[in-house]
């Protein structure tokens, strides 16, 4: 069986990637954000898994607008970094793990998840920025192969939060039934509160975001019970991306240990959040 060793929830704001690509991380507007990441990055550098599963959404770059999958999974050997209209980010392409992809596909379809399979896929900032949050200096290659799981969050109706959490739970079972003994990291991406269009553009809800950062560890059921309208009202029309953290959380154990969390406003038009969890239960004190 494979074993999930950690889960990382993180925003995927494009300007976080741009700040890193342009060497601006020490500038005053950016330094607090990257300082907040540091403890998580250090822990992650010591806990490289054999493979990672990254739950993300495409932003009209990898998939044609006439096709909107609710849930997708990549089965490729390699995922090319997308050109979103301003050149590719200067980061490595992503190596995949087709054997594990096919195993997850079979298990998840057997459990009634109606995945769309991508034999080829270009990945955009929704995918590469979380990888950069994890590994700021990948050199020629990311630390391990990564499997994309895609969630529709940009077109209404998105999957419900409950469905995302259920997908995560099934993902956890599917990983556990993989015949090889490998370690796995799971990334849930997107959020925190933000809204890009309309008169409510610039909306930030730190109260909600802090509640979310706490509940994702201790009470994911509460987050899974919220409707998509709840998310849009409380976290903004793009804050609904947070439902992707529930897929990550669902794949982890009931009790998990927080390694580090961070919260910062603003990263561009967005509140940026990070939460890193060790999949082991907390060690009882004394």
């Amino acid at each position, binding site marked *: 069986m494979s074993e999930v060793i950690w889960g990382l929830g993180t925003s995927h704001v494009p300007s976080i990637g741009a700040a890193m690509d342009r060497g601006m991380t020490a500038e005053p*507007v950016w330094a607090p954000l990257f300082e907040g990441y540091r403890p998580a990055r250090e822990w992650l550098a010591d806990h490289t898994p054999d493979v990672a599963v990254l739950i993300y959404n495409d*932003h*009209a*770059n990898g998939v*044609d*607008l*006439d096709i909107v999958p609710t849930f997708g999974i990549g089965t490729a050997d390699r995922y090319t970094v997308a*050109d*979103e*209209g*301003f050149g590719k980010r200067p980061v490595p392409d992503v190596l995949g793990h087709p054997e594990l992809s096919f195993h997850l596909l079979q298990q998840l379809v057997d459990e009634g998840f109606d995945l769309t399979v991508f034999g080829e896929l270009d990945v955009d900032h929704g995918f590469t920025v979380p990888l950069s949050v994890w590994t700021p200096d990948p050199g020629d290659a990311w630390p391990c192969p990564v499997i994309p799981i895609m969630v529709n969050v*940009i*077109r*209404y*109706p998105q999957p419900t939060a409950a469905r995302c959490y259920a997908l995560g739970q099934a993902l956890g079972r599917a990983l556990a039934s993989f015949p090889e003994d490998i370690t796995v990291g799971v990334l849930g991406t997107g959020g925190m*509160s933000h*809204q*890009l*269009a*309309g*008169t*409510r*553009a*610039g*909306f*930030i*809800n*730190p109260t909600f975001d802090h509640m979310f950062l706490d509940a994702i560890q201790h009470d994911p059921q509460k987050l899974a019970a919220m*409707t998509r*309208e709840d998310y*849009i009202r409380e976290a903004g*029309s793009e804050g609904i991306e947070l439902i992707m953290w529930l897929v990550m959380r669902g794949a982890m154990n009931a009790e998990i240990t927080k390694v580090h969390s961070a919260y910062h*406003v*603003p990263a*561009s*038009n967005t*509140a940026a959040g990070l939460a890193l969890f060790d999949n082991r239960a907390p060690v009882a004190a004394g």
Partner: protein
Amino acid sequence: MTSPSSPTAAETYLFDGPSSRRGRAMNKLFMSLRDEQARATFLADETAYCARFALSPEQTRAVLDRDWQAMLDLGGSIFYIYKLALMDGLSMQYLGGVFTGMTEADFKAAMLAGGRTDV
């Protein structure tokens, strides 16, 4: 016609099925701008490019005039509209200013002060 639980309002602009249908031609045009050659073709004759993508007269006007608010109203998705803004060298903060009636500088200042927590 869609379920009553589908919220749509000027403060939010959910990109739902009906808006994607309304904005399809325009969003297809925006998506094409990921390609450098396409951007050059567009800039050489914007009207012809809009005609090639079969934009409605209102959509064509919105694109030519860079009427970002009208693009939203005519079914544009912010993620697609943003590709046109990118080409023009404009930021998401600039667009945020347009949608909220602020200058880009004021919008940026509002974000740096912790975002618009009161809307």
